């Protein structure tokens, strides 16, 4: 069985641009969470989605948005990119929210120049 997949693996953008990151959860998993991991730090929670609805939101500006599709895949969108948005963006899937035996994808490395 495939694990959590994320695309793209690496991305370089310039300030002010927009980016869309994609995540496909493990088959059967209905909950997807997004995290931002700055180099040398622990992941910070951005969003959690379950059954296509937002179930949780971390302390991130409105430039960050996400959605979950009927097949449970998810997109994370970031508008008006700032240098500080450079980070590894991780997606994690689980059967249901609150199940922290969640499975993480390899992440998307975003570099903003």
């Amino acid at each position, binding site marked *: 069985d495939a694990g959590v997949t994320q695309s793209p693996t690496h991305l370089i953008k310039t300030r002010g641009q927009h980016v869309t990151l994609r995540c496909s959860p493990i088959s059967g998993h209905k909950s997807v969470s997004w995290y931002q991991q700055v180099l040398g730090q622990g992941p910070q929670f951005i969003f*959690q989605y379950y059954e296509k609805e937002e179930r949780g939101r971390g302390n991130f500006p409105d430039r960050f948005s996400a959605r979950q599709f009927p097949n449970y895949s998810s997109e994370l969108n970031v508008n008006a990119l700032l240098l500080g948005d450079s980070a590894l963006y*991780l997606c994690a899937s689980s059967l249901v929210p609150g199940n922290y035996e969640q499975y993480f994808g390899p992440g998307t490395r975003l570099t903003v120049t």
Partner: protein
Amino acid sequence: GESVGLHLPTLSVQEGDNSIINCAYSNSASDYFIWYKQESGKGPQFIIDIRSNMDKRQGQRVTVLLNKTVKHLSLQIAATQPGDSAVYFCAERPQGNYQLIWGAGTKLIIKP
């Protein structure tokens, strides 16, 4: 603000010895704690969890200890192997909240 931190950013351990990774948390309302392992170039991997009504939980070669009195969490790895080299994160979940708060991580280095 609420935070989870680690005492040691880097820990070097001889192969075969036991490793102890420590974590301090500040939110007394947290009721669930998790340890994750992140190998280079990969996403974090769940290792073991513990609820606040327990003070010890054992897994395969790993043991988590929780001391709520001093808000301290530790991960013990028995007979450390080269494959244990990674950054280890503790995370806490404030009661009633799905959101995890992660610590900064401890890098475990295994010496041959």
